[in-house]
């Protein structure tokens, strides 16, 4: 008797009726989503990966060669002047002052 009641109950539980949803429910959800912006609350690992991706060089060899070329051009256009300016601290007067006491020794 108990087994019969079990079966009947289980049959009733499996065949419970559900009112069908509106035919356009899925489309309504999709349409609403189009008006909502996504928020990108990414986990730490993923956000770090994205940050590094920002600095990714598409063609590193070209970038390196370009940087070297610009460096050389700038270097040759501004030759380094090794002669000291006239009024620098290493002028003859200053040097004479520095060595002034050595004569007495």
């Amino acid at each position, binding site marked *: 008797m108990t087994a019969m*009641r*079990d079966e009947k*109950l*289980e049959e*009733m*539980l*499996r*065949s*419970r*009726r*559900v*009112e069908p*949803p*509106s035919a356009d*429910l*899925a489309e*309504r*959800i*999709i349409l*609403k*989503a*189009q008006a*909502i*912006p*996504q*928020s*990108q*609350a*990414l*986990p730490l690992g*993923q956000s770090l990966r994205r940050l590094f991706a920002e600095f990714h060089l598409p063609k590193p060899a070209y970038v390196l060669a370009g940087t070297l070329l610009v460096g050389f051009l700038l270097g040759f256009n501004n030759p380094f002047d090794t002669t000291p300016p006239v009024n620098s601290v290493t002028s003859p007067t200053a040097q004479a002052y520095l060595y002034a006491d050595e004569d007495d020794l």
Partner: protein
Amino acid sequence: MAVEWAEKDDGELLALIQTGSHHAFGVLVRRHTERFYRLAYRYVQNRETAEDIVQDAFLKLWEEPSRWQPGRHSKFTTWFYKVVVNLCLDWQKKKRPQSLPEDMPLVDQRDRPEQAVVRNEERRRLETEIAALPERQRAALNLCFAEGLSNQEAAEIMGVNLKALQSLLMRAKATLKERLGD
């Protein structure tokens, strides 16, 4: 092209949704809306409310797609069942239990009129008694019988072990048998 999209599994669609693909979202929604509506309906017994809950669940997923973490969650449907069940429980906490609407189609169209009346009354009583069950027992019944999930899947969704789920089912059925009589 449409076939290609339809062939994508849920995991692939979710990865695309995380990059902002409306198309992938559309495919996922069309694929699963009805299944999750059925689940929500069993809890709230009202079409509009069930539709609102399903809509809310999907829009939350769209708004914050990083909620889905493939490494942490085994299967999209298992995880989303949990999301929908939680929304239903939230709704139930806010609202007082409602009686079933009189025009609710509980009757099988194939029944003869006298059979239909008896069956209608049985089903109405069953729904009332299910609604009166403790929350976890009701969830176990809804997932295992109405949704046809395996006990293991239902246990995973509810966050309990298999034995605990079986015990919930047994207690729910015993209560229902007792209250519904013979």
